[in-house]
């Protein structure tokens, strides 16, 4: 049987956001908010959020799968547009307010003291931005397939980092066998400007650039960097999981990890974990299992389940 129930969360704008609350058999000390991956809905890519949430419920955590406004079953309307335009807005913090609403509702409805925000891709960047803006309300972040390099506006004339561009060009070559891809080319639906940009980037000469901590390059998302620093300063635990075959990992490794973190896979409060040969969305079962185990282990370490006696004792202590 399913121990979940639909919930509705209204904002001051009177729009209703919809979600699915999952509660464990006993009281929960920690709750996890799952966000949609990009422009999909709260179930996640191939039900990944459903899978992770129900496993955490079994372990004793509360969960909420949540559709921000304009996605899934929630009120709000996203204009039909290029996906990258909407993604650009998500990377700029479109859903920070909605996530804060959901965090507060989850805490209230589950009775949990700690709330962790989790997501994949667009859900990951939203989780980081929202947590950075609400360090008083969020106690942990799990980001999977985190996009740190923003969509580059065509007008900027900028091209991607060489290693990223080369990987993308490799993808184009592999797609030469795809009739679907050729169909898109013939129909004029391919992003020719993006392809040209990647080709230029792939063959660009590297040269050193002196960074500035207060200004940012077009392949950096200043809002992400600001939020990441805020989370570190506030000592909020942050687990980042990537598939090693994910372009988002290549981008992260080539830019943020190298520049900001000096290549260190663990830091004050953050930890970076790799799923070997995992894709962006952890398509294969082995990748899903590994990502799930990493998530579970981190939760057990950072937010251990309280034994029933301890919980009772603590409640008694709090009452005093």
């Amino acid at each position: 049987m399913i121990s979940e129930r639909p919930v509705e969360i209204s904002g001051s704008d009177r729009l209703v956001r919809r979600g699915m609350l999952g509660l464990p058999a006993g009281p929960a000390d920690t709750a996890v908010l799952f966000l949609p991956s990009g422009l999909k809905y709260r179930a996640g890519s191939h039900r990944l959020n459903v899978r992770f949430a129900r496993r955490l419920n079994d372990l004793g955590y509360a969960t909420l799968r949540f559709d921000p406004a304009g996605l899934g079953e929630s009120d709000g309307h996203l204009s039909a547009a290029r996906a990258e335009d909407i993604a650009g807005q998500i990377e700029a913090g479109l859903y920070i307010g909605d996530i804060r609403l959901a965090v507060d509702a989850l805490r209230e409805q589950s009775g949990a003291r700690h709330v962790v925000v989790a997501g994949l891709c667009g859900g990951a960047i939203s989780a980081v931005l929202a947590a950075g803006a609400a360090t008083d309300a969020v106690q942990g972040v799990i980001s999977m397939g985190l996009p740190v390099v923003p969509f580059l506006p065509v007008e900027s004339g900028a091209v991607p980092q060489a290693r990223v561009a080369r990987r993308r060009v490799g993808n184009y070559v592999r797609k030469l066998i795809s009739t679907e891809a050729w169909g898109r080319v013939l129909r004029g639906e391919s992003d020719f400007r993006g392809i040209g940009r990647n080709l230029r980037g792939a063959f660009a000469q590297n040269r050193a650039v002196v960074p500035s901590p207060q200004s940012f390059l077009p392949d950096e998302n200043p809002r992400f960097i600001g939020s990441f620093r805020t989370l570190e300063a506030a000592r909020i635990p942050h687990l980042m999981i990537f598939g090693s075959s994910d372009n988002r990992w290549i981008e992260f490794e080539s830019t943020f990890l190298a520049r900001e973190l000096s290549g260190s896979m663990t830091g004050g409060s953050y930890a970076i974990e790799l799923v070997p040969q995992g894709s962006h969305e952890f398509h294969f079962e082995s990748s899903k299992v590994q990502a799930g185990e990493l998530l579970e282990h981190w939760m057990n370490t950072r937010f251990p389940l309280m034994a029933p006696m301890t919980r009772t004792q603590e409640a008694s202590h709090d009452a005093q």
Partner: protein
Amino acid sequence: MTPAPGFSTMETHRSASWATGTRFPPRTAVTLDAPPATPPVLRAARLAPMLRGFFENRRGRSLYHALHGDRADPAEVWIFCSALLEEATFALRPTVQLAEAFARDGGTVFRFDYEGQGESEGDARRLGLADWTDDVVSAIEWVRRRYGSEVRINLLAQRAGALVAAEAALRGPLPVHRLLLLAPVLDGAKHFDECLRAHLTTQLACFNKVNEPRAVLKEQLQRGQFVSVLGHDVGQALASSLSGARLRPLLADFRGETDVIHLARTAGRDVSAALADLHGLPRVHLHAGPPVTFWDQSGRYWELTADLSAQVLQVAGRQAGGQGEGA
């Protein structure tokens, strides 16, 4: 520079030796104060209330459902039979909006997730089309319990959900009045072949080569192993049932009316050629729809478009007043 509100000014050590391409001269640097590059795309629009919850299918599994429409005793109810696997994930939002358009027009719509799909209970690896056809019957039973056995049941199905809906209409134990099929899969074998092609694409992304060609994947299925289709593990039950399903014979024997709306990738494509397999069938009406492929991962985000919403309502025999995106 003054940081934007809500962002830390903490400085983190950054290596001075990192390198990038030639791409970013310092004058192009942006700051925290930079406004978003694109205008807002989100605007306020309210959906009508929907009744959401779970109901049990005939195998005792909890299936997620949402009921749209506020009529206490509707004469007819449209049950939406969703696409399968990841196509259903992509199509969820326009499907919700289509249900909303029906409801705003006075209609009643019952949406649900098949077992092992969406937010329903279960594991799709051992399920096939027959199980999901049975779930449609469970959905019909739920609707009849709520509104009485006289309520007329219509099925609106998308993509491979059309094969499920047509099977339920033809062979299910409960009467189905009519079918409306949106971009239906005509040939299950071809469709499953495309599913396996998606597996090859994922292999390329992960391993830079195809380790297991389609023939090997089919052998694995026959041995009882599972194959990932865009992250959904499927087994032989789905492989064999989908590969053996064709829409034409199901529609040929169905006694009710069927409307089929073809959605081409490109405007102006000939609906007659695309739906040639359905030519000559009595009680089957073919329609050309707008170029909207909301079930796949294209470069666009699909909300339900006004023209598609209006056409579906019109074909369904409802007034084309709803626009599918709320007030």
